[in-house]
């Protein structure tokens, strides 16, 4: 049977469509959205991480300005954490090692026990993990500011709880933030499979302009 040229063309076009759809996988914008009407047009304002400023393990200020144009992964932990933090750090190390030579990808680990986790404690911790700023910043600062940022902006739980081992409850989430500080993905940082997805999504974000 001979296929007519037109059928071939349609087949070609459909397969082209399928291929281009797969290539153009995009990530959602997470968090509350606002719509604003101006000059008859409807604009969607996506949830954005607000301005912040914390000290890192080298006692250097790290702010939202430093993250401009960077993709970053945020998480919440504390150095004396006996439960899920070591698992999270094991997984973050995979990301750190993978993007060791890519300046566009950063990690921000916020301490939720900043009174204990001073810059010098974080410095020791980072050294023992063999990681360095600015690729991986371990942040400390005003406790209320860290908790508020965690809950309101990164949409994770972080609070003191005397009944919990180590004295704090917090989620094991990794939050993927794009170049414009929009949250584009949230992953369970204690699960290797979930972190595989995170790495796939970082690759997608890196293609975004």
């Amino acid at each position, binding site marked *: 049977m001979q296929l007519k040229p037109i059928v071939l063309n349609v087949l070609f076009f459909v397969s082209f469509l399928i291929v281009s759809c797969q290539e153009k996988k995009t990530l959602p914008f997470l968090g509350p959205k606002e719509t604003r009407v101006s000059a008859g047009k409807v604009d969607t304002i996506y949830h954005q991480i607000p301005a912040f400023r914390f000290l890192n393990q080298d006692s250097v200020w790290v702010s939202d300005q430093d993250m401009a144009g960077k993709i970053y992964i945020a998480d919440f932990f504390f*150095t*004396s954490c*006996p*439960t*899920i933090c*070591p*698992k999270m*750090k*094991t997984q973050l*190390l995979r990301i750190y090692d993978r993007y060791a030579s890519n300046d566009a990808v950063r990690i921000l680990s916020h301490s939720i026990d900043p009174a204990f986790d001073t810059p010098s404690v974080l410095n*020791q*911790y980072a*050294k*023992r*993990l*063999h990681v360095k700023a600015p690729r991986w910043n371990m942040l400390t600062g005003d406790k209320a500011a860290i908790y508020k940022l965690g809950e309101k902006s990164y949409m994770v739980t972080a609070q003191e709880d005397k009944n919990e*081992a*180590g004295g704090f409850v917090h989620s094991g989430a990794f939050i993927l933030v794009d170049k414009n500080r929009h949250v584009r993905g949230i992953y369970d940082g204690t699960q290797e499979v979930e972190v595989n997805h995170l790495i796939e999504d970082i690759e997608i974000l890196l293609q975004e302009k």
Partner: protein
Amino acid sequence: MKNILAIGLIVLFASCQSKEEILYQQYVVEGRSIYEKNCSNCHQSDGSGLRDLYPPLAKTDLWKRVSQEQLVCIIKQGQKGNSQVNGKPYAGYMPANAKLEAIDMAELVTFMQDQWGNKKVYSFDEAKAALKNCR
């Protein structure tokens, strides 16, 4: 016919396993799940530790240097201050595992010895006595 013979041989072999051998295998299986729950977060499933932050358990001098009694007390009460593994110092602390009882300790230590130390059972009675004598 061949099948029946094979099954017969297996049954015969299984029943030949001594009581101690069966107990040992049970302890190793139970111990593994206790290890996964309480220890592997830091020391990793394969006992390799995490860089210079958490010391390894596999291929270490611990199994010659630290007695089973000491080990049980370290697991139960945790550890503060510096420790040394393979001659390398590790800072920080290890959290207590107050919920682990004698039977858990027997299974856990048996599992760890099976993996990294002498393949010998650590009995419930020994674990119980060790826990009593922790300072």
